[in-house]
């Protein structure tokens, strides 16, 4: 925690105007994430996880507060963080390779150079043989890999992953989690991860933010002090189970009462 935080969410709040008045989607939220950390947001649906992501990515102007990246105000500016949405959003008219270089292409990197940079990564991270195929030829897991590589190749220090494995079957999901861990330890990006799956969050993260709803807020911060690299069997250790229990307890308490207690 000695280094300056990479990403700071400083009293960010969000209210939407509705016909029935204003709807407070996010209570002022403050987070500071050090560089190279993997943190997860978990919480019930409607707790504003996607709203936070849209604000960090600059796609939504918060009604209050600021987003700082490397100490610089980045509120409402786009192209500062890599953002992977729930859907893979691969463009069907582009090959896998050309999909993966989209971020670089938009940033003005010459095509030939972008392709040359992407090719070895595709090969190293399990997409070799798929480079020149179109996305409709890929399985769900492969599509997610391509989408994630696209996000990584955008080459920002902060990466937001919004339930990237939500739509995958259990088997593929486990493989993808291990694959993501390998990728993260190679790239050392600051990752903010959103998931419904408590076990997935614990397995992947250094720290968990448990969110409550109405308005969206952070009820508690749960550190995950499990040694890395983590094995599948880590999920069976008493430490892991204790963290899981704590998270499930937090999630089952009504957020409002939890807030009053705090």
């Amino acid at each position: 925690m000695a280094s300056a935080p990479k990403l700071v969410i400083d009293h960010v709040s969000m209210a939407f105007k509705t016909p029935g008045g204003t709807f407070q989607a996010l209570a002022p939220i403050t987070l500071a994430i050090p560089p190279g950390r993997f943190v997860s947001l978990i919480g019930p649906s409607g707790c504003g996880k996607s709203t936070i992501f849209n604000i960090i990515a600059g796609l939504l102007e918060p009604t209050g507060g600021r987003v700082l990246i490397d100490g610089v105000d980045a509120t409402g500016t786009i192209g500062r963080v890599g953002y992977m949405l729930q859907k893979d959003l691969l463009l069907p008219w582009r090959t896998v390779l050309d999909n993966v270089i989209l971020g670089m292409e938009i940033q003005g990197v010459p095509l030939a150079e972008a392709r040359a940079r992407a090719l070895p990564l595709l090969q190293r991270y399990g997409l070799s043989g798929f480079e020149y195929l179109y996305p409709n030829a890929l399985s769900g897991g492969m599509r997610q890999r391509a989408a994630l590589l696209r996000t990584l190749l955008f080459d920002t220090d902060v990466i937001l992953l919004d339930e990237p494995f939500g739509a995958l079957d259990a088997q593929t999901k486990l493989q993808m989690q291990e694959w993501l861990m390998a990728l993260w330890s190679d790239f050392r990006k600051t990752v903010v991860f959103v998931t419904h799956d408590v076990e997935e969050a614990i397995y992947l993260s250094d720290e968990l933010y448990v969110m409550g709803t109405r308005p969206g807020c952070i009820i508690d911060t749960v550190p995950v002090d499990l040694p890395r690299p983590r094995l599948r069997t880590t999920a069976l250790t008493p430490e892991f189970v204790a963290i899981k229990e704590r998270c499930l307890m937090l999630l089952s308490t009504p957020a409002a009462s939890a807030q009053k207690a705090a």
Partner: protein
Amino acid sequence: MAVQDSRLDDIGGLQGAAASAKPARRLPVQKDWPAWATITAQIGVLVGIIGLWEIAARLGWLDAFFWSQPSAIWRTLVIFFTEGDAWTDISFTFRSTILGFIIGTTAGSLIGLSFWWSRNYAAVAQPYIICFESMPKLALAPLIILVFGLGLTSKVVIAIALTIVVSTLTTFAGVKALDPDGEKLFYSLGATRWQVFRKLVVPSCLPWIISVLRVNIGLALTGAIVGEFISSQHGLGRTIFYAGSTYEISLVWVAVFVLSTLAVIMYAAVSWLEGVLRKGTRQ
């Protein structure tokens, strides 16, 4: 064990009874002919129709004055191509159709795509577009001829009027069907509006634009011919109109035949174009 066995027997007996009570039915199977047989049959039908027509006309079953007959049509065809203005007429109709098709489709697609740029502009324009769409555009044809003259221009304008609205509406439907998350992805990567338009909106709408090409070639042809019907100095439409009013029925058939050939050629060209464009969309 014994109990189980007898139960199994019971079930077996039941199944046997059910099977014998119901006649065994099989999946109906249709056997495909080989390609040569299909083609032979297709040609056979054509030859049969022409043969019957000729015989009926010669035996007086059909009034050859109104219906003409294949032998007379053939003679007229030869005269039309050797002594008449066949090539002038064909090229006139062909040019107005193609020009109307290209200008109408391109302009319509561009207008449809332009609605992506501003929701306000789209909202203002929409009632006018729908109005123009529901209007029978051929009713404007006499006016268009008055304004644009008897030449090629007026035919092209009628063809444009018919094709432009369909293209606009279909492309706009494509714009409305865009996945907002796609735009979100592009903007999260720091894209400009122009980049989103070029790299996302246009390719996403391409299948919609392609789907309208085939319809538009027919519409453009209709527009050009109706324009020639009303007033023109050249063209296959004018030939049909002129021949009909002077009871030269075989010439009507010749012109219709040439027109159909022209239409088939243009359809083939559009199908080829579709194939080329679709290769780029992979959907």
